[in-house]
């Protein structure tokens, strides 16, 4: 990637609560707020931190499947709903399955780089609890190639990643692999318990390892190689953040140390109609992470924390290998040894990630950026980890589909 022609910042992040099973306020049979509520809550909270809508030049919103989950298309039109001051401003909606949120970030970054905007309000949202999981699985399967849906599992994406887990078990051993996946699950829940907006914030299970061991994969009821504890849950949530130029940051009155600088990124697209070249590898993530690190001019060891896309525990394990923290097949060991825990070598997903915090599919990319912004600027509350002075860097990796659309972004404390 070419050297950036100007500096780009992100600031004023906000996450709504991730609502779904696990949250005490969630009742599947009672009416819940819709898409509009979440967009408004997140958007307005960010506007409040930047002196209002008058300071916003553009809006971008990431959303995956509102046309099916909520029977609502034309999502960009919901941005001016956040505040009258946004009326008639340019807005765009991005879609790249579960990487829709990061694509919204990319849209904002590119607008700022193109000098067409100094301040872009960026939102990510998904409201998925509008239907039972068995039907939601149909909707989410849209992130795969529809020609392959018929042969896929009832729970399509869990099925895809179950196949990946199966391939990993076969080569490296199931018991070994599941030790790593178990630790991944435990880290996710323990981190989520420190973050009041997390879906697993109320989780009070005493022995998470025992629970994990008890719930074995059962192909008759679910998929062959994963249990529900290996999967992110169904979530309703939105996140928002602003993307600014240096001038933009001044305009909204946010000091640099309250912002993060975007040092580099990579955006990768793999052919949707092709199966992954190797089920035990996430090649698009590998490529995106490598390019992003290079573009930022740092090394992987300079990172203080990373938000990785753990829609499934096995995806988390594979990510540690794709990032180069572990050799192929050693990712499960790396995680089992605690290296990705909040006090480990490289803390991953410090507020729970997709499994612990929640996975509002189209909103997740923005949520990841907000989390890194919180950690690097010391706003993560109880979930705050120590950011070493010589490693003031963070990264987000947002994945759409089965390693198809991937965006990796590198951030530095501003």
């Amino acid at each position, binding site marked *: 990637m070419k050297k950036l022609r100007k500096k780009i910042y992100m600031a004023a992040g906000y996450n709504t609560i991730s609502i779904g099973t696990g949250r005490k306020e969630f009742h599947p049979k009672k009416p819940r707020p819709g898409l509009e509520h979440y967009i408004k809550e997140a958007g307005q909270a960010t506007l409040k931190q930047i002196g209002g809508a008058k300071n916003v030049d553009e809006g971008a919103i990431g959303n995956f499947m509102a046309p099916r989950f909520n029977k609502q298309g034309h999502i960009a039109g919901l941005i001016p709903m956040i505040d009258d001051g946004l009326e008639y401003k340019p807005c765009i909606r991005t879609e790249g399955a579960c990487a829709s949120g990061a694509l919204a970030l990319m849209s904002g970054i590119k607008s700022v780089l193109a000098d067409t905007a100094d301040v872009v309000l960026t939102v990510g949202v998904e409201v998925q609890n509008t239907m*039972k999981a*068995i*039907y939601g*699985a*149909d909707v989410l*399967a849209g992130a795969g190639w*529809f020609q392959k*849906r*018929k042969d896929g*599992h*009832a*729970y399509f994406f869990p099925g895809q990643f179950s196949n990946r887990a199966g391939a990993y078990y076969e080569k490296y051993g199931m018991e070994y692999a599941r030790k790593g996946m178990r630790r991944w699950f435990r880290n996710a829940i323990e981190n989520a318990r420190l973050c009041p907006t997390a879906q697993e914030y109320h989780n009070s299970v005493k022995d998470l390892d025992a629970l994990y061991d008890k719930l074995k994969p059962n*192909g*008759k*009821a*679910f998929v062959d190689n994963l249990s529900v504890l290996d999967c992110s849950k169904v979530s309703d949530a939105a996140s928002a953040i602003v993307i600014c130029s240096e001038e933009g940051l001044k305009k909204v009155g946010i000091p640099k140390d309250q912002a993060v600088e975007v040092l580099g990124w990579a955006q990768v697209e793999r052919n949707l109609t092709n199966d992954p070249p190797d089920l035990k590898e996430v090649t698009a993530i590998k490529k995106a992470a490598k390019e992003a690190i290079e573009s930022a001019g740092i090394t992987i060891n300079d990172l203080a924390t990373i938000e990785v896309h753990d829609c499934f525990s096995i995806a988390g394990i594979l990510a540690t290998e794709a990032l180069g923290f572990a050799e192929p097949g050693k990712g499960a060991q790396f995680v089992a040894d605690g290296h990705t825990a909040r006090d480990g070598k490289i803390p991953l997903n410090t507020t729970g990630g997709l499994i612990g915090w929640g996975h509002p599919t189209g909103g997740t990319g923005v949520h990841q950026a907000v989390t890194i912004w919180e950690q690097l600027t010391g706003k993560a509350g109880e979930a705050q980890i120590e950011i070493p002075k010589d490693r003031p860097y963070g990264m987000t990796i947002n994945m759409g589909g089965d390693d198809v659309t991937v965006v990796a972004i590198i951030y530095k404390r501003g």
Partner: protein
Amino acid sequence: MTYDEKLRNVTVLGAAGKMGSGILLLTAVEMAELSLKPENKSKTFVLNAVDLSDEGLAGLMKYLKVQLQKIAEKKTVYLRKVYADRADLIENGEIIEQYIFDVMNIVRPQTKIEAAYDSTLIFEAISENKNLKVKLLSQIDTNNKNNPWYFTNTSSVPINLIDNEAKLGGRILGFHFYNPPAVQKLVELIKTDNSSEEMVEFAKAYAKSLGKIIVPSNDFAGFIGNGHFMRDAMHAITEVESLSKDVPFVEAVYMINKVAQDFLVRPMGIFQLIDYVGIDVVSFIMNVMNPFLDDEELYSPLLIKLMEAGVKGGQNSNGSQKDGFFKYEKGAPVAVYDPEKKEYHSISEFKEKCDEKLGPLPDSTVSWKSIIRRRDKEELLEKFFTSLKSLQSLGARLAIKYGKRSNEIGKVLVSTKVAHNENDVNTVMLTGFFHAYGPVNSFFN
């Protein structure tokens, strides 16, 4: 005739009733399962849902749709395999819809008994009226050339009696589901003196396919389930009558109900259970059983008095509980009926006083709900009842007396040869009434 062939044309009589609708649902699902087998795809399967009430049948179809949706949603992983050859069915939603259609497409709701004339298997789930059962079955049998098998869901009428009076030549079995059939695991199987082995084998295979547990019962009015329940209910009514010499009737009902539920760790109190089954139904069953009993009387003027006052319990068509001994709000008892004044008295007015009279439970953390799924429930119950026996309170005394009576009833069912053994009695109470422990136990010795 093979199993599949036997289930090609089936009739459920009384299909819109509480038991009939459940039997219809289970049978429709089983028949659909057969119809979806590759070798059966060119064959037609017919399930006649016969009931007098058009309104009831409309409600039945609604019930079926809702239940089938739930069933399909639970087994979508499997259904995707069943419909693997249907290129037009891609999404779960499409497969679920097709399945619901395929099951409902087997069902023919109708009000005319003639529908049963072509069937090879007929489930009878009409009201507990022997003469009506005999009349309908003999009418069908005269007009049906298939020599059909009759599975009656009667919970009290002796099967041999129906067989002889309707002249069915032994082509009848007692096949007694528990309420609600779609949930309760138990089926009581009652053979007649002439039941063929082939029919019994089919019944076992059918029950197994439905995931039911079969307990054989001898052909004695009430069989095992009601043999226990009716006597258990009589005990409670007698206790209320004796207790209401000292306290108002409504308080006595509340207290005995509480003893049965909380002190005996049962899923619901005895009077709530009577309401659930229906005061009228309980009274009919007692009526059917009573003439067959030599040295005891199953007859309750209280139940008759309540029925005459229009207080019958049972369920509304949407499944909610009708008022009976208790008045219900959101399924929970809130008031007790006073047959003298013909009005309900709010439980909150006397609850505290009565609870105090009964005394505390040995361990307030032990309830039916808290232990039913626990592996160590035997141990917990042993501890609970041992400690109960050391209490001198009114509640403890009533509970021990009640537990002993239940035990005695269980043993009588074996000694009078209604049940083959004590184990069968316990299985019936565990799986048909969802009790946490069987009546034949050593807790109350």
